[in-house]
């Protein structure tokens, strides 16, 4: 046994330190920890000796993609992150923007794809828990959730099991904590069969002065741990989330975590009380890589060091090793930095919620992460080596993958019977009513929900603030598969358009980048292109990125997911009386299409489902035009000209019209006529961006058309809102009831 702490602290330790753990670090162990030989060589250089097994574990998780963003960081650095409204950009637990009147909105999206693929219920539930903690760790009370879900077709039993489990897991967790789910997405494609995508966005609000950061300050301040005790669950979750799913993953047992929403609710309330007391220096939840990541990041941000004693960590399993304590991803745990003199008050607040304040360490000025367990130093690592100076992976040769794309004109449109096509599309799980999902979510708790899920963006009021907050989350893997750059630009524009449709001015965005392996040329190229597109679109639309998440390795030996960036956006309706519905409101209103003409039906979700092929060409966007149309719609909303508005996205004009009918209370449909020279396939199915369907009273049509002309936005009257019927002249004729019967299909 060695006790050569001194040597270790000065970084001159010898092999002797290995004795403490009695595990020899073989090349096989290094490989198991996901480190390349080059990375291991760098580790040896940093440490000046061989690592202990605990240290190897720490390096492994901190250098994993999940924590270090090593593959993505250079790309993400190109995103626009500044703007007049941005209070905190990427780098904190979550981003924050100014809403005015002293209010801040904190929001972020996180994925829990890999855990959900093996244990859908707990995987999704713990995903909700994690993103909520990111929000309240910033000092904000979580007020809403949105979930973006993607699965393989539910006619496969395993997919159906995953779908039900994920929805149930989100429901149980969010409902219990009491945060309403006010929107989301639900999309089906065979490419998500082996890797479902479960992205959850959370939104919180705080007064500016209540905002908290994860930057430790001061030497000799205490690290206070509270929440659930640490167990063996989820060990190496972060490295797990950074590796492809294989056949064996199902037996990758220790990675599965269980959620405890009751504990989450208690730590939420306690945290808000703690922050209000003004006695917290810094705060972070223990998420990926648990105690290690949360403590080291806070210390490193403050340029400090850390000493930690693992004997003080609350434990609920016998004989946990230092390795396990450092890497456990047990849920519902928080770590606060507290001045010693404030500890009694902090402990008193925690006790009210039946929580203990456990001092597990303190900040130092050494810049090192020193961990003791049972009287032995188990780790002694310079913090920058695991937090900032992470090894750079070798760049992967970026080459566009050859795609097997079928041109849309080769589809036999003459054979299409449009009534049947629409009904089939409406009853497909992708387009069918999501009521069966959002009715399992308490979408009204906290009594702020002004627009419930069901049509368009979710809208919240915030007591004490004069505006309304609109939010949406959007993605489209199909568009991005065809062209990751253009697709991502279109997705970002769609998110903004969703907000504009309800009358909201887009403010800022968050994103979740779901991709395959960045170590393969296709994945690496798709990622780079998507991030480039995201940056372009956000710059053009004036919506800075305030945070986000990257999920790589969404692939299995037999398939990779479509590149699927998901964009979450928040916006503001300054004048609540201008809130505009997404559904038909009055019989006799005139239906108008705003935006460019459709040129092709490539990228169409309906054609993909119909043919099983990737039907191209890719959807492209002119961002200047997009911005012009959006500003025009906001102007019309402001002038009170519109009675309803929705954007055109997946499913094209056909689905936009159908959804405006299906969401209306009174069974309102429409009678539409396409221009004589327009081919129905392109007109109805095209997913060409920058387009809205709006309605106005007959009396306002002239001014709507005139205003559009002045704004340089194409406006085409399509027809009229009618009770009960849904017809498109010469193409299809159905009743709203028939639509409804096809659409309302619970899973």
């Amino acid at each position, binding site marked *: 046994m060695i006790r050569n702490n001194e040597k270790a602290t000065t970084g001159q330790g010898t092999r002797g330190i290995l004795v403490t753990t009695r595990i020899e670090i073989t090349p096989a162990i290094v490989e198991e920890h996901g480190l390349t030989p080059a990375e291991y060589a760098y580790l040896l250089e940093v440490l000046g000796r061989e690592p202990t097994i605990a240290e190897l574990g720490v390096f492994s998780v901190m250098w994993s993609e999940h924590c270090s963003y090593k593959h993505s960081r250079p790309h993400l650095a190109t995103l626009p992150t500044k703007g007049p409204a941005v209070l905190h950009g990427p780098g904190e637990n979550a981003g924050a923007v100014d809403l005015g009147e002293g209010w801040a909105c904190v929001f972020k999206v996180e994925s829990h794809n890999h855990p959900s693929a093996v244990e859908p219920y707990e995987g999704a539930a713990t995903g909700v828990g994690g993103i909520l903690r990111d929000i309240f760790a910033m000092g904000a009370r979580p007020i809403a959730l949105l979930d973006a879900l993607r699965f393989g077709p539910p006619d496969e039993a395993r997919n159906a099991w995953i779908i039900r489990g994920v929805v149930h897991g989100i429901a149980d967790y969010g409902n219990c904590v009491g945060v309403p789910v006010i929107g989301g997405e639900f999309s089906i494609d065979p490419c998500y069969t082996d890797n479902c995508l479960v992205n959850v966005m959370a939104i919180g609000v705080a007064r500016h002065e209540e905002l908290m950061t994860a930057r430790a300050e001061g030497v000799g301040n205490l690290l206070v741990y509270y929440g659930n005790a640490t167990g063996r669950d989820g060990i190496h979750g972060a490295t797990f989330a950074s590796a492809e799913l294989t056949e064996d993953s199902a037996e990758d047992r220790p990675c599965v975590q269980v959620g405890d929403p009751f504990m989450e609710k208690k730590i939420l309330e306690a945290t808000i009380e703690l922050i209000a007391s003004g006695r917290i220096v810094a705060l972070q939840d223990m998420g990926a890589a648990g105690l290690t990541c949360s403590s080291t990041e806070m210390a490193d941000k403050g340029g400090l060091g850390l000493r930690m004693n693992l004997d003080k960590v609350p434990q609920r399993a016998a004989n946990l090793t230092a390795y396990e304590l450092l890497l456990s991803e047990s849920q519902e745990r928080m770590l606060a930095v507290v001045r010693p003199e404030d500890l009694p008050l902090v402990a008193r607040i925690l006790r*009210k919620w039946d929580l203990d304040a456990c001092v597990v360490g303190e900040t130092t000025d050494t810049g090192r992460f020193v961990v003791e367990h049972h009287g032995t130093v188990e780790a002694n690592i310079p913090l920058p080596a695991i937090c900032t100076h992470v090894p750079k992976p070798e760049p992967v040769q970026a080459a566009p993958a050859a795609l097997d794309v079928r041109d849309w004109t080769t589809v036999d449109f003459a054979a299409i019977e449009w009534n049947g096509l629409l009904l089939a599309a409406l009853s497909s799980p992708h387009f069918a009513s999501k009521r069966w999902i959002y009715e399992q979510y308490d979408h009204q708790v906290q009594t702020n929900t002004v627009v419930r899920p069901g049509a368009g963006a979710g809208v919240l009021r915030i007591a004490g603030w004069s505006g309304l907050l609109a939010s949406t989350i959007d993605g489209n893997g199909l568009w991005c598969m065809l062209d990751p750059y253009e697709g991502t630009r279109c997705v970002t524009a769609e998110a903004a358009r969703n907000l504009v449709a309800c009358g909201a001015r887009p403010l800022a965005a968050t994103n979740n980048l779901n991709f395959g392996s960045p170590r393969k040329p296709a994945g690496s190229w798709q990622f780079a292109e998507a991030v480039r597109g995201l940056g372009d679109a956000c710059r053009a639309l004036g919506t800075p990125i305030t945070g986000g998440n990257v999920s790589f390795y969404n692939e299995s030996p037999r398939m990779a997911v479509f590149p699927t960036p998901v964009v979450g956006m928040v916006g503001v309706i300054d004048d609540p009386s201008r809130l505009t519905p997404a559904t038909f409101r009055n019989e006799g209103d005139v239906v108008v299409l705003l935006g460019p003409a459709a040129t092709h039906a490539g990228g169409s979700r309906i054609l993909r489902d119909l043919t099983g092929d990737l039907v191209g060409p890719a959807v492209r966007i002119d961002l200047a035009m997009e911005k012009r149309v959006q500003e025009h719609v906001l102007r019309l909303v402001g002038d009170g000209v519109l009675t309803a508005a929705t954007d055109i996205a997946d499913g094209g004009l056909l689905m936009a019209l159908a959804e405006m009918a299906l969401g209306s209370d009174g069974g309102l449909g429409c009678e539409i006529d396409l221009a004589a020279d327009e081919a129905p396939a392109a007109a109805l199915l095209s997913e060409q961006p920058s387009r809205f369907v709006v309605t106005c009273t007959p009396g306002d049509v002239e001014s709507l058309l005139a205003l559009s002309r002045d704004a340089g936005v194409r406006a085409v009257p399509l027809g009229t809102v009618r009770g009960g019927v849904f017809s498109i002249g010469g193409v299809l004729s159905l009743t709203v009831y028939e639509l409804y019967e096809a659409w309302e299909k619970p899973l």
Partner: protein
Amino acid sequence: MSARWAVVIFPGSNCDRDFVRALRDVLRVEVVEVWHKDSVPEAIDCIAIPGGFSYGDYLRAGALAAMSPVMASVRTHAERGTLVIGVCNGFQVLCEAGLLPGVLTKNDTLRFRCHDVYLRSELNGGPFAGTGLPQGEVLRLPIAHGFGNYYVPPEQRDAIERHVAFRYCDPLGDVSRRANPNGSVDNIAGVTNAAGNVLGMMPHPERAVEALLGGTDGLRILQAMQDWVAGVRAG
């Protein structure tokens, strides 16, 4: 003379703030928040037990909260005639505590359900209806629960019939099987105790007090309680 209200808060309550806001900001009454480890003060006219997942609803919905220290004082108040309203989880707590008959079990759909329902009021005057909410009136209120399936054993049905407060119905007031969201016996959505001063209901009146959020029917119940207290005070 305005009533003094207490809102009881358990760890895991999540509609407590909504209830307080409905009372304070909309009904504009005086409210005290009572933590589960404390007692409801003497000088209180109405007690609200809000919804949520007290103690995570682990074991059975409401069961662990029913054993908590504050419930002794709620019981004393209830016996003395103080008005008590339990909503959603609060209803489950009151049943588990034996202050109301019956029990709430898993929805027969086996799913959590959150949407608006219609309720027919079966109350014939009294503290929760007064004159503003006539018998047979149809209200529209939201539900949000996974355990709202009301059950009383057959031998107790006759006894509680007179104490049924609300039944799930269709928009026209028809109490049909289709209108029953959770399998509750006889479409029961709310009941009172025999004395008539304790009400439990699954739908959320405190969520329906502002037009902006989709309806104000919940206000009618809270206002009735308010008026009743004023009437009693006035003698």
